[in-house]
């Protein structure tokens, strides 16, 4: 009886996994098929005649190198700023019980819930007024600002799980708070930082709203926008090319996610539950 129950649970799990996997599966296999093949047998494995031809054609037509470089540099700068600032703030919020810091915790938390579409139009004018309209620095800092509330929240939750005795012992020995942070806390932050870096980089990589509105897409073609335009200019006449282009945008984040996913559960959960 127990055994049957166990097996049926496994089967349900496998079924659900397959269901969730179908879209990704379609994307991957159809990237290696011709347009006619996709229409005729969408679910079948590809033959060997097309190979990476779709992807190579998409590389050329999307000018993907430029898009990769643009998106990667925006994401890199935004995530670096957001992560370093948020780690500091999260640490302060987790350790200080002063009412000012308690209030700040709620202020930062409110930042997570601000709907980005409601910020975006006024943000255009704020950036213009600062002389940062249509600039690399402008969009990177704007990204840093909108992804940092979540990072603060997760860091704060994480620091609360670290016993403060370690630092208190150091203070007794005459260590300054800054040194305690650098020497004791910083080395413990690796898993949670890895999680945040990946999640937030993926957010920037996938976003289309900011590059659509804040910058000129000819000057800063991010991957999302490049793909969006690529689709727009082609309609549905050549599915093989569209699947190839989609794979180009997806592959970097998928690789990144798979190589870091072992940190995921630990890193995310600390902030969400204990926070």
């Amino acid at each position, binding site marked *: 009886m127990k055994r049957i129950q166990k097996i049926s649970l496994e089967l349900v799990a496998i079924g659900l996994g397959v269901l969730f996997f179908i879209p990704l599966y379609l994307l991957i296999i159809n990237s290696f098929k011709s347009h006619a093949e996709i229409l005729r047998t969408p679910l079948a494995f590809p033959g060997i005649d097309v190979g990476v031809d779709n992807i190579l054609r998409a590389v050329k037509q999307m000018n993907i190198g430029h898009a990769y470089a643009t998106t990667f540099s925006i994401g890199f700068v935004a995530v670096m700023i957001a992560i370093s600032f948020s780690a500091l703030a999260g640490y302060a919020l987790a350790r200080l019980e002063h009412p000012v810091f308690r209030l700040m915790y709620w202020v930062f938390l409110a930042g997570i*819930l601000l709907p980005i579409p409601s910020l975006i139009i006024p943000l255009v004018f704020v950036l213009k007024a600062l002389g940062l309209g249509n600039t690399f620095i402008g969009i990177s800092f704007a990204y840093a600002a909108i992804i940092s509330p979540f990072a603060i929240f997760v860091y704060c939750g994480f620091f609360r799980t670290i016993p403060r005795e370690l630092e208190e012992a150091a203070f007794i020995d005459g260590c300054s708070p800054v040194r305690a942070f650098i020497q004791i806390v910083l080395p413990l932050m690796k898993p949670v930082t890895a999680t945040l870096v990946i999640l937030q980089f993926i957010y920037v990589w996938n976003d289309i709203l900011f590059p659509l509105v804040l910058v000129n897409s000819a000057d800063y073609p991010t991957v999302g926008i490049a793909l969006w335009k690529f689709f727009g200019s082609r309609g549905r006449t050549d599915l093989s090319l569209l699947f190839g282009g989609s794979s180009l945008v997806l592959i970097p984040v998928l690789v990144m996610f798979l190589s870091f996913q072992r940190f995921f559960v630990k890193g995310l959960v600390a902030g969400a539950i204990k926070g």
Partner: protein
Amino acid sequence: MIRKQMFWTGVAFITPVLALQILFLLVPVTVSLVYSFTNWRGIGTYQFIGLDNYRSIFSDASYINSLRRTIVIGFSTAIAANLLGLMLAILLDQSIKTGKLLRLLVYVPNIIPVVVSAFIWRYLLDANTGLVNLGLSKLLGLPVVIPWIDTPSYVVPSVVTIAVWQLMGPIIIIYIAALQGVSVDLLEAAAIDGAGAIRKFLSITLPAIAPGITVNVLIGLANGIRIFDLPWALTGGGPAGASETLGIKIYRYAFQSANLGYAMASAFTLTCLAICVTVVFVRLVRRYELGVT
């Protein structure tokens, strides 16, 4: 001595991020509030016209519809994602062999770029050639031609379904962690006292995972209310504006009808909507928690 030093170090630690957020979050919200009372067109001079913009947008039927639609999407995303997420998390918590792989697969939709997801789903949900309809036809043995994204009545449920599919990963991770915190001793004691599975779930598991539920419902609500890119990439807000959310409406006011006043007024309305929903929800949770303990 160290206390005072700690305080000022703390101030120094939060200042950079605070400056960043004031400049790029608080100032824009304020700007949207101030300019929502003007007839500014993006350049040149402007006058303050009081509540005229709000009066205009709220008497625009398409705006009211998009407001209502945004709220519907927010709540149905939150409810569906949490019911399904909790069930999946309970399944994954049963220490089954395929659990790790499933957890990974369920997370993947969350990292797929929205433009790509929209493309794949448009392909899957196409009325005539989409795999969903073809699959249903085979299953039921009769031709099924449901226009999932091409008719106004189906497009919102389709958007919600895709949004739930995207959100499942983070929600399940949080539920799994919450479930692992449920006291096994308590569950065993209840079992000895003759409590059934449902009774145990309602009286022990549910109160224990309440913080996780709060976080997850907020994730669902926040993501549903701010949704822009998914309907934008899936249908462009169509057909006939049937999947236009407030986010899309703001964009249209600003860039397609060049009416900044309307855009700012609807932007500020969206901010207020998000704040109201959050505050009401958090209050309800507080009351529930006080009632339980």
